[in-house]
């Protein structure tokens, strides 16, 4: 974690830590937010006409990122088993489908159907749409850091992981059996890395992918692909839901339900508190920090047959599922520890009355040299927590805490919901 150095003294860190770990009313954050509250952000899409999709987000702390998505047509290398597989394809495909249904993995199943029904050409001749992780290339550029810096590489792999985790994304890049889209996602942090940029980069990528459009395919089946020149006819990579969702709910699911790209949120824990969207100062006292990637499947409004509750609620319910969880080394590990008064040689004068009396009984000269030996507390203070004295946290997140963090992200009406709602409000151009 290579954010710029933070100048906080151990005393300030201890104060911040104790105010963030307050439980009775709520933790007190330096900027007065509630634990789940996000900072305001400004976002726009379609800022670069030379790309297939682009987005820019500015966070309130002044960090800013730009993401540009470019797509190229690439030939899919044909494996020698391809033709054997294609003759068995029909059987294999239906078999797989039924197996999946029996597993009751509704998310997977509905989104599989989306992909297949989205292209009319496919439904006529069932072809196994497969993607390969090689079809997506993601790069992160952070000013002042080399591109092979471990922090940058870690960010890149985390964002890539979220995108590729469920294998649904690469399926969207399938053109036909011989060709596919190769998607380049280039993420640029414009501002200096003031805070850990993962959530910013993830949200900007999310928006850029939502805004990404690919030219409409004119050719059929396995021909060399031909595309419509008209950019206005280009189709969104993530199919849009109709403007009036109520109309679709009464009909059967004709329109493709909108699934959305993944988002990665940074969650941190201080004591028993779970805090979202931590600022740089808050991260400096985190006991543990976790990056949680969440994807939204097709909303359950469309698959109302399976879920009777969705008819009663008029608002669409998100179908969130967890993609990945990564613990992040918080910068708090590197903070300098405070020194308790009992072991601080310069603070002998300010000892408590009891210890001062104990120190005063032998000769004064002995007390100063053998001070540490005389006080059994001193050894304890060096290794264990003393109230009000900062000590860098050790060890990772507790299992129970990890579970609680993930649950809090995923819960209905929770943070991920709120973030996705907010991003939905961004006008796509």
């Amino acid at each position, binding site marked *: 974690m290579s954010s710029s150095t933070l100048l906080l003294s151990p005393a300030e860190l201890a104060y911040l830590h104790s105010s963030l770990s307050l439980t009775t009313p709520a933790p007190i954050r330096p900027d007065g937010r509630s634990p789940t509250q996000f900072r305001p952000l400004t976002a726009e899409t379609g800022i670069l006409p*030379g790309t297939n999709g682009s987005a820019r987000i500015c966070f309130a702390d002044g960090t800013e990122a730009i993401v540009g998505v470019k797509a190229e047509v690439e030939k899919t290398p044909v494996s020698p088993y391809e033709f054997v597989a294609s003759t068995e394809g029909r059987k294999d495909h239906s078999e797989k489908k039924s197996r999946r249904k029996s597993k009751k993995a509704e998310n997977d199943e509905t989104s599989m159907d989306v992909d297949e029904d989205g292209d009319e050409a496919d439904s006529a001749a069932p072809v196994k749409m497969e993607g390969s992780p090689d079809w997506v290339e993601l790069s992160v550029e952070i000013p*002042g850091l080399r591109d092979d810096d471990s922090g940058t590489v870690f960010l890149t792999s985390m964002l890539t992981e979220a995108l590729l985790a469920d294998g649904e994304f690469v399926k969207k890049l399938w053109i036909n059996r011989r060709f596919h889209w190769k998607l*380049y996602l280039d993420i640029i942090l414009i*501002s200096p890395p003031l805070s850990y940029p993962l959530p910013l980069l993830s949200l900007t990528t999310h928006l850029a992918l939502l805004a990404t459009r690919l030219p409409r395919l004119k050719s059929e089946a396995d021909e060399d692909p031909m595309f419509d020149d008209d950019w206005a006819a280009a189709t969104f990579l993530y199919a849009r839901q109709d403007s009036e969702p109520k109309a679709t709910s009464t009909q059967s699911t004709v329109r493709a339900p909108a699934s959305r790209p993944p988002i990665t949120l940074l969650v941190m824990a201080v004591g028993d508190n779970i805090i979202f969207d931590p600022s740089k100062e808050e991260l400096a006292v985190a006991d543990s920090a976790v990056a949680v990637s969440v994807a939204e499947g097709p909303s359950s409004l469309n698959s109302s047959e399976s879920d009777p509750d969705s008819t009663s609620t008029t608002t669409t319910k998100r179908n969130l599922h967890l993609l990945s969880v990564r613990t992040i080394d918080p910068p708090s590990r590197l903070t300098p520890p405070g020194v308790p008064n009992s072991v601080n040689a310069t603070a002998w004068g300010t000892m408590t009355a009891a210890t001062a009396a104990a120190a005063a009984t032998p000769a004064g000269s002995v007390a100063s040299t053998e001070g540490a030996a005389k006080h059994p507390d001193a050894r304890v203070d060096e290794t264990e927590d003393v109230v009000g004295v900062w000590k860098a946290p050790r060890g990772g997140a507790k299992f129970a805490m990890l579970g609680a963090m993930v649950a809090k992200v995923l819960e209905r009406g929770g943070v991920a919901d709120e973030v996705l709602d907010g991003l939905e409000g961004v006008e796509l151009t």
Partner: protein
Amino acid sequence: MPLDTSTYNLALLRVDGRRWNELRDQRGQMGVQPSADGSAYLQMGNTKIQAIVAGPNERDASKTNSSASTAATAGGLGATVAVGITVAPFATVDRKRRGRNDKRLQEMQTTLAAALAAAVQGQAYGPRSTIHVSLHVLSQDGSLLAALVNAASLALVDAGVPMTDYLVACTAGSTSSYAAADEAADPLLDLNTQEEQELPFLTLATLGASDKVVAMVCESRVQLARLEGMMATAADGCKGVRDFLDRVVREKGEIMVQEGAVGRGEVVSSMDLD
């Protein structure tokens, strides 16, 4: 795709419909990045640059020597100007990733650092301070170096770094690349990528509206007889760019007065805002 320059002589119009001495559409904005000391967004045609200025800060010995930026000292014992350029992989029509060790970028950084150091009054800060200028190329369509200079200049103004004048730059080319048509060759102002690929061109940076040349870069073969005409055209273009930058700064000043950030006539006494 090579450009067919033969059509120019028919109507004296360039591929994008401009005449020989016309600049492309320019847009500029200051203070686009609240966390930076100074920032600017500049658009010259389809070339889009975002410039961020950090500093003046205490010199960081470990950073000035890295390959991420190139530094030059302003005004003898004055502050150092460090320049870093990143070109977004999606900036060109075909995606192309450029590493930090790209020779062309490094050369541009050196040119830019030297040119900015000449315009910045570095003695105001002293030798231990560094001004970091980082430039992000979001879209690239010719006159890259010129746009970088102008964007950096605007961002430095936003950061409040004292400069003798705006450092402005512009490119100029010549209509034909062969020697025979010397008489018929017209100089062209502010080239786009298509023209840059085909024609000889140079980038000229001047100090404000004066004809003081701060930097000149010419990487293509050009007839010596045409050089003067090209330089004169570029210098004229620089005047136009200076007017444009000045307009952007004044607009920003007016907004600041309206918002009450600055009292009227307090700091901006020399500006005529009415």
